[in-house]
């Protein structure tokens, strides 16, 4: 168990060395969420207490999922991924390693938006430690979600298209920029099925002490459960992908 965790860190370290500076990671993972937040801020004359948590969750979500898209799909395309299957490690370890590198990038992506929020929003934090913990938790769940999605993609050349087909609707349906409470029932139901809704609501509560439709105990619990579930499902998909 400990050995597998150690090796997951080695995989993450290797991924960060390799893919941190790839154009796809920088443009979609780091620049897009920051520019998006900046654009909203300029348009509305600053970040609001309601919008800032959405921008933070958007940043960590795009940062972490972009990294997994690069690190997994690219390796699968050039056969390097098979190398991981030749090491004496479990499939969960591989999924965890890939998630950890995505996690780091997700955290990095969220920092500039957090700074913007700190400068322009005067929201009273419930507790900075709770916000930090929540961001770590949310980034972990985003990472494992990205890893699972990367392993499900059959054709690597379609990676970014598929990722964006999944990510962009979430941006509008997951309480990031539009309150779900204003949605008609059908969209509300869809929103409840999306992981980003719980992530955003958890961050919103830990940021400002308020929430839109998901109470904090539910958003936190679901975020934790989804993170672990995505990780486990990723390991199953790795095993299933072995011909």
């Amino acid at each position, binding site marked *: 168990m400990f*050995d597998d965790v150690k*090796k997951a860190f*080695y995989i993450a370290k290797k991924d960060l060395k390799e893919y941190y500076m790839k154009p796809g990671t920088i443009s979609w993972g780091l620049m897009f969420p920051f520019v998006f937040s900046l654009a909203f801020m300029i348009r509305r004359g600053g970040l609001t207490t309601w919008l800032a948590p959405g921008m933070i969750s958007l940043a960590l979500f795009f940062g972490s999922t972009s990294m997994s898209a690069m690190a997994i799909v690219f390796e699968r395309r050039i056969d*390097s991924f098979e190398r991981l299957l*030749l*090491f004496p490690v479990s499939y969960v370890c591989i999924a965890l390693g890939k998630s950890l590198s995505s996690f780091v990038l997700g955290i990095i992506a969220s920092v500039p938006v957090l700074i913007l929020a700190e400068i322009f929003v005067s929201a009273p934090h419930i507790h900075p430690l709770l916000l930090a913990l929540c961001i770590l938790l949310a980034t972990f769940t985003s990472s494992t979600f990205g890893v699972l999605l990367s392993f499900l993609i059959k054709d690597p050349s379609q990676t970014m298209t598929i990722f964006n087909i999944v990510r962009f609707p979430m941006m509008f349906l997951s309480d990031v920029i539009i309150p779900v409470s204003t949605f008609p029932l059908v969209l509300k139901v869809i929103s409840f099925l999306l992981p980003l809704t719980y992530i955003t609501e958890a961050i919103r509560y830990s940021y400002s002490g308020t929430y839109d439709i998901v109470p904090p105990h539910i958003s936190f619990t679901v975020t934790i459960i989804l993170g672990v579930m995505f990780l486990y499902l990723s390991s199953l998909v790795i095993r299933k992908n072995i011909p």
Partner: protein
Amino acid sequence: MLNLYFRGDDVLENHDECVIVVEELTKKYGDLVAVKGINFCVRRGEIFGFLGPNGAGKTSTVRMLCGLTKITSGKAKIYGYDVARNHKNVKRIIGVVPESSNLYWDLTCLDNLLFCGEMFSVPREERLSRAIKLLKLFGLWGKRNVKFKNLSKGLKRRLTIAAALIHNPKILFMDEPTAGLDVFSKRMLWNRILGLKEKGVTIFLTTHNVREAFEVCDRIAIINKGRIVALGRPWELREAFSAKGIIEIVFHPNNPRVEEVSSLHGVIKVERKHELLKIVTYDTVRVLKEIAKLARSKGLDIYLLNVRGIDAEELFIKIVGDS
């Protein structure tokens, strides 16, 4: 069926010596049966060649042994560990050189080896020294800080082999190790591979290069259409499957008709390549006498005469063709 040298008995008789034991191993991809219940064992410290034409089932077999493909039915054990159940233990003791050089593109040569060392739990204090030793051994020391993607094909191959050796594996699986390499790189690699054998490493070699395999392997299995059609030492295979010899001859001023030569006693078949007649025979001396008689009767001189045994490639084609 030319399965003369293998009926599964070497598994039973030499079980202690066997480090890889394969019994009734089968692989199906949907309706396609790629490997059909094969049996063989690989003995400790030998170079075991696994040959076959494209699509014969070589790669499927190797991938099953390495844990990269699921086993449909049958058993495979490596050093006593069941490949399907104990894949982690198996992976600790094997090194794999896949057909494509698939190390990490944006890592340097040194970083690639260090990462492999980490993943194989090579102790921290040994990792760097082993990596340096391997880089020097494979002539890559000067390229240690060059990214893998910037290496030439030959150098990529060398680094891929070096990476497979970082944890001192007991068994090395090599799939087409010399494919696409120039003569110098090939020779260098074979020297390294033979050096490994001297150190007691068992080598499972898959290759299309039949001549190389017959030169370096202790035993060879030939697989065709998912079945092992021959298994034995190179000389055993030659003796079992080849004709006694080949006579290459050019007459002067012109060759007799192919039919005339074919009708001589002891001739199996005759092929004509430009002016050269290639006569495959099971009785070389007798055919030589017959040829002399034929030449005398037709008033022909012999311009060129070459007598040789069947070569490895011809033998391979014969075994696969007959099966």
